[in-house]
């Protein structure tokens, strides 16, 4: 199958704007990270508030509905809290974190930020197992207890996080697996547990952990549903990094997925030629909460 056979998806509306706010820099090096983030991965660098502001303004003109901040680990970015405060003037904001830098003081400040804003501030904390035996081989030694403590700290400060689970084992996607996570959170006093489950992308570190994509895992024009491609998040989102604007949060390590410098550059259609596009279609993935 040649890439010329791949279908193209148009941007229906720029509903969701993502920022790779700490680049590919992270204080962990998780075994399933599809962007292979680590303390030494400078593929994308931190973004400053000054870099971000013009995109917030351009996004507002285009009718952006929700803002998301990810990395890497966003709280490595020294301006992260100021960035969230600014973002909340434009719309609801969500930050995706591993929780390790959420000390008591920061939890208190984030809760105050959330309370002061008209829009929702959501914190999503990643956890990949319901105990150390299932989580730590993926996220790193000792991380299970530290992440769980951060979830409880943030909750106690008044901000109930969304716990984000990746399907690193097939059990995670079953009702039993989800129930285990919910039970774990309830057992720590979180009475309204919130959970988001995402499939893995066989990219980056995950490709090494479990093997990459097979040649048949590609979309062709014949895969197009009758209703079109509007179930794919690339029909309604773009991702901004310090290197420019990319089609989606998944493909930032693919130079061919860069669409330009400004949001206006990136309003055109995108060719679904990457195997990760197959995952989004097959699993109905959205990185939104």
């Amino acid at each position: 199958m040649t890439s010329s056979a791949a279908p193209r998806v148009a941007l229906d509306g720029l509903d969701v704007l993502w920022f790779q706010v700490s680049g590919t820099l992270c204080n962990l090096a998780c075994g399933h990270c599809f962007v292979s983030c680590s303390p030494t991965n400078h593929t994308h660098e931190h973004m400053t508030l000054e870099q971000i502001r013009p995109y917030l303004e351009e996004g507002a003109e285009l009718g952006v509905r929700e803002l998301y901040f990810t990395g890497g680990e966003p709280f490595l970015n020294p301006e992260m809290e100021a960035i969230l405060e600014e973002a909340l003037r434009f719309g609801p904001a969500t930050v995706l974190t591993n929780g390790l830098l959420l000390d008591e003081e920061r939890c208190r400040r984030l809760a105050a930020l959330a309370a002061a804003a008209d829009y929702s501030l959501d914190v999503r904390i990643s956890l990949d197992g319901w105990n150390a035996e299932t989580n730590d081989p993926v996220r790193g030694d000792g991380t299970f207890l530290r992440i769980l403590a951060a979830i409880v700290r943030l909750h106690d400060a008044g901000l109930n996080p969304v716990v984000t689970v990746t399907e690193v084992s097939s059990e995670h996607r079953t009702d039993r697996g989800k129930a285990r996570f919910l039970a774990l959170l309830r057992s720590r006093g979180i009475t309204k547990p919130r959970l988001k489950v995402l499939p893995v992308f066989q990219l980056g570190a995950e490709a090494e952990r479990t093997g990459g994509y097979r040649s048949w895992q590609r979309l062709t024009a014949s895969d197009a549903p009758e209703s079109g491609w509007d179930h794919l998040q690339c029909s309604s989102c773009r991702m901004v990094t310090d290197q420019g604007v990319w089609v989606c949060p998944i493909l930032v390590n693919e130079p061919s997925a860069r669409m330009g410098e400004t949001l206006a550059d990136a309003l055109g259609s995108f060719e679904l030629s990457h195997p990760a596009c197959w995952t989004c279609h097959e699993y109905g993935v959205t990185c939104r909460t």
Partner: protein
Amino acid sequence: MSTKPEGRAAEATADRNAVALTRHRGLATWGERLVPLGEFRDASSRSGRVLGDEERERERQRLRQPVGDGADAVELEGPLEGPWSRAIVFGGVYSNHRALEAVLDEAVSWGADAIYCLGDLGGFGPSPERVRPLLAQGGVRVIQGNYEQSLASGAEDCNCGYADPRDNHFAEISYRYTERHCTEEFKRELGELPAARRILVGERELLAAHGSPRRVNEFLFASTTSTPYLEVLCDRFACDGVVCTHTGLHWHRRLPSGRDALNVGVIGRPANDGRREVWYARLEAGARGQPLGVELVPLRYDWSALAREIRAEGLPEEFALTIETGWWTTCLEVLPAKERARSRY
């Protein structure tokens, strides 16, 4: 140094993580390869599929034009209805025929010249067919919700797709019950309802839809719907305001442009605020050049009788408790951070 197998496995994990922590020094990840940073950045900066100035302007314009493709997109055919001087709008009946009767009484006493229902007639409540004659007698202009779409198309569930198995469990019970207690004739009628209506209240042309003018199942919550988005929505659908339901929670925002965004809430269950009233909206024509009059109104009705009927029908106790306490007990997962923080469960 442990020699037990699990000890060795842990060491291997630690080694792998240690390598992963430093392997990128001076290198970038390009797909599955590690390449010098400069190579990745050069390729990226060349790659930008930069549109020409004209194309860029065309794309910008396109994002403000009506959309009409995709299965969930709302058809915008149909005549402009009105002008009305007073209109009542409600959503999410959820088989609550007692609240429906009460809101129709209020419509008469307030002097409404039009009554609109934005869909989701069934779910949670008892005896779904009981709302049918009430809607007909009241001359209610109904829009199709996702529940009607599912019922009319013979879908197996309401397609809420919750992550929490408990939410799915209750959603399934409620859908199966409603499905079983609706006649084929009623389902056919539901399938023929329009997906949107254009309403003239005074001089204001409003677009009424279930979730949003774009999609029947789009959630417009106050805390996760940005004002710039609502302005563009009004642009794209060439209207002075959007009126919707679907979330179960009511809110109104006057946009900087003077247009209105309104979620009328639902009359089927309380607004998750510890009050037993349910909510609907009164729209009133303003004087020439004046803004639209918008009032969100709490509706009193015989909630204890409804709770009794829910129990008598063998529906889950959780559904009756919501009616009696004003707090949602199921399907809470869709609530955004702010709305969930105010919630009891």
